[in-house]
């Protein structure tokens, strides 16, 4: 009898599930989210996926991501799904998408950009999806996700 591999991860009582994250993006997403240090987090990396060949998965117990945090994850892994769990039930499921433009979230990579001197959040236009890349609307510098410094 052949045995199918299974991945045993406890179901959440309440919290957030990030599924269909791009393979090997979960640890970067967690670094960016800077969750409270005592948060229970389960992470799956390089799991088999029907949608893509491989995917990552994050389950966060007892913590619901804010819109801003979800927007940051979208910049690392667009197309991921975000589910909010309450009493074991999925009460909200969202497919993350890249915005056309967005304010804040990251710093402009150009040290000469005016936003580093003024008290205004950066303004960015998304240019690419894979890898994610943006263009600063002020200094027009383009840069890819590997150079994103999240706020």
């Amino acid at each position, binding site marked *: 009898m052949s045995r199918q591999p299974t991945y045993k991860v406890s179901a959440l009582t309440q919290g957030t599930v990030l599924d269909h994250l791009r393979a090997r993006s979960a640890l970067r997403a967690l670094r960016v989210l800077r969750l409270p240090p005592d948060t229970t987090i389960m992470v799956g990396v390089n799991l088999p996926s029907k949608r893509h060949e491989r995917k990552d998965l994050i389950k966060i117990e007892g913590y619901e991501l804010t819109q801003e945090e979800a927007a940051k994850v979208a910049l690392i892994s667009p197309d991921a799904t975000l589910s909010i769990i309450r009493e074991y039930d999925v009460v909200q499921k969202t497919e993350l998408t890249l915005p056309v433009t967005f304010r804040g979230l990251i710093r*402009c990579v*150009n040290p*000469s*950009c*005016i*936003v*580093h*001197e*003024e*008290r*205004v959040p950066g303004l960015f236009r998304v240019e690419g999806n894979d890898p994610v890349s943006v263009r*600063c*609307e*002020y*200094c*027009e*510098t*383009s840069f890819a996700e590997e150079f994103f410094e999240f706020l």
Partner: protein
Amino acid sequence: MVSNSDFVGRDIISVGDFGREELLFLLDAADRFESETRPLLAGKVAAALFFEPSTRTRLSFESAMGRLGGCCIGFAEGGVSSQAKGETLADTVRVVEGYGDLILIRHPREGSARLAAEFAGVPVVNCGDGAHQHPTQTFVDLYTMRRECKRLDGLHVVFVGDLRYGRTVHSLVTTLGHFDARLTLVSPSFLRLPKELRRELQEREVDFTEAQKVEPVIADADVIYVTRIQRERFTDPLEFEKAKDAFRIDNTMLHKAQPGVAILHPLPRVNEIPPEVDSHPHAAYFRQAHYGVAVRKAILGLLLGQAGEDTA
């Protein structure tokens, strides 16, 4: 179809905001405004916020405003503004918009003009934001090429000198992509056009080649655009001495060029064009500086709702 109303109240921040038809419309307006002497901008005030020194840009804007009957107020170096006291640019702009009908800004930080435009209720013209953009210089360069070569499409333009740090070159090479230009980029290897810009030219299918010597590539040039190589870019003074001679245009070299070749330079020049070239009939760099007034008259007129057309 571009019309005057496309320019009224508009900000001029980056050449990337302008398509081919808008650029041609602006150049046509400059032709009209060159001889315009009516006080079309009487009672109008341009507020010039020059946080960095400028000679040609500031004076040609002041001249343009004065020739159209308006006036310029402002400062010519950052140390005298409230920014020296810690005021943000956004606050400076919100104050100054009450003093002028239009803001001219030069600032060392990249993106500063776009930010100023976001906070200002009057049009903002970028007169240079760090190494980023200097769109009115690009308009002047295009205008000069069209005036000197009697056309703008299909020109072979040879750029010579520092192509890495020169913002005038960066804006111009991408803009020439609208006009089916062929570009030859001549520079020392470490002062090549930046990689991102070369990629952009490739993506936009602009015909360009790179070279390290001027003489072999100028035979069929329509325009030679020379820029200054700055000593401070070199770590080895000997390398600078070699480069400043290798990327220089002189009369001997120009004998190998077409008789009608136009020689442009955004100025100031140092060694790269010796004074002997000044008498060459197509040494156009001083005319280029003078065309700046016509182009800037057109910009001021259009933004403030005056087309410069004969209304008689």
